[in-house]
């Protein structure tokens, strides 16, 4: 009888340990995505969203307030980005602008939001109308090189 109780205690301890570990993994060692967000989703259309992926952070003044849910193509060939704001208490005015920025020169893309001054705020499924696309580094370099080339050409012609 005593042997059996000891065995049951062992099994109980084992199951309990696994349960506690599961709790730990759920609450601390992973993003608790099973807990429904109390936030809301707004949309923004960008002409160019190269390098922006789902789960990229959304920031106001450098503080993370949510993440990009998805990036999709619209019929008018723009990138429609779903922005999930984590908390309802983060209220965004209607004339908010969204920009795609880069962390460092070659770092990860994120969405920076600059709140406007309007009295009314964006609701769930609303759209941020004023957007500013991210720059593509390759285009900038190409433009720079072209400018450099034409300048030196001009210089060459003026010297003659």
């Amino acid at each position, binding site marked *: 009888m005593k042997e059996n109780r000891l*065995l*049951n205690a*062992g*099994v109980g*301890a*084992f*199951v309990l*340990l*696994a349960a506690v*570990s*599961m709790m*730990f*993994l*759920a609450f*601390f*060692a*992973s*993003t*608790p*995505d*099973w807990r429904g967000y109390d936030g809301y989703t707004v949309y923004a259309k960008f002409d160019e969203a190269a390098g922006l992926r789902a*789960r990229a952070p959304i920031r106001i003044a450098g503080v993370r307030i949510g993440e990009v849910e998805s990036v999709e193509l619209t019929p008018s060939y723009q990138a429609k980005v779903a922005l999930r704001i984590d908390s309802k208490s983060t209220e965004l005015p209607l004339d908010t602008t969204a920009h795609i920025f880069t962390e460092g020169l070659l770092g990860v893309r994120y969405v920076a939001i600059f709140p406007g001054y309007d009295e009314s705020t964006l609701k769930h499924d609303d759209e941020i109308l004023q957007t500013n696309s991210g720059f593509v580094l390759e285009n900038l370099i190409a433009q720079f090189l072209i400018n450099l080339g034409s300048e030196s050409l001009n210089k060459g012609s003026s010297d003659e």
Partner: protein
Amino acid sequence: MHKLFDRCVRMGEAVAMLFSVLYAFPRRREHFKTIVQHIYFYGNKTMMIVIVAGAFIGMVISLQGYTSLVRFGAESEIGGLTAYSIYRELGPVVTSLLFIGRVGSLLASEMSMMNINQQFTCLKMLAINAYQLVLFPRFLAIVISVPLLTIVFCLSAVLSSLMVCKFALAVSTGIFWNSLEYYTLFTVDVMHGFWKSLAFGFVIAWVAIYQGMSAVPNRSGMAKATTSTVVSASLLILGIDYVITALFGSML
């Protein structure tokens, strides 16, 4: 041709046996008692080796990952790298391989030993359903134990990786947790490993019981059963792991 036919026969036997084991759902109190007993013999006794293995694997992954990440200046992502690979792949697979070594071989040799000693015939004479009393409890105990052990493995690996990052690699705890939480989702990554380990437990139990039951009832047959359990269960686990990752890797 004859060999192929033989293979098919064995495969069919294995499927038939799986159904008769699953059909023998316990109905009496003794059967449930046996289940708890076998969770103790299989799960608890394997816990120590799983925890130690998890700790060392977590440590070595963060050490090795750090040396490669630091070249790209991304050493702050070490927590995410470690946890992602452990939750999704290493946790279930390594736990299952250890479990095969520790329990699969034990179960196969136990089954074939019972066959040699004609204990199943004995039970039949006593009108006791061997599937209910002997096979189903062992099967269920394994299916329950493997996922639980996988969770323990994951926890042990993450904590030991945290220790290494904190004391040996000068990555602060905050940075570690930050990247870890950013890269792993509970319902996607942790549960992916969980479902995987459930499937692995099922496969281990099936292979071990079938090999043990179908062994030739003599000493060399028993040795063969033990060996082929370890070999075929390990290969099956690795193969199924690839299939599950390829099919459900992105959505689960």
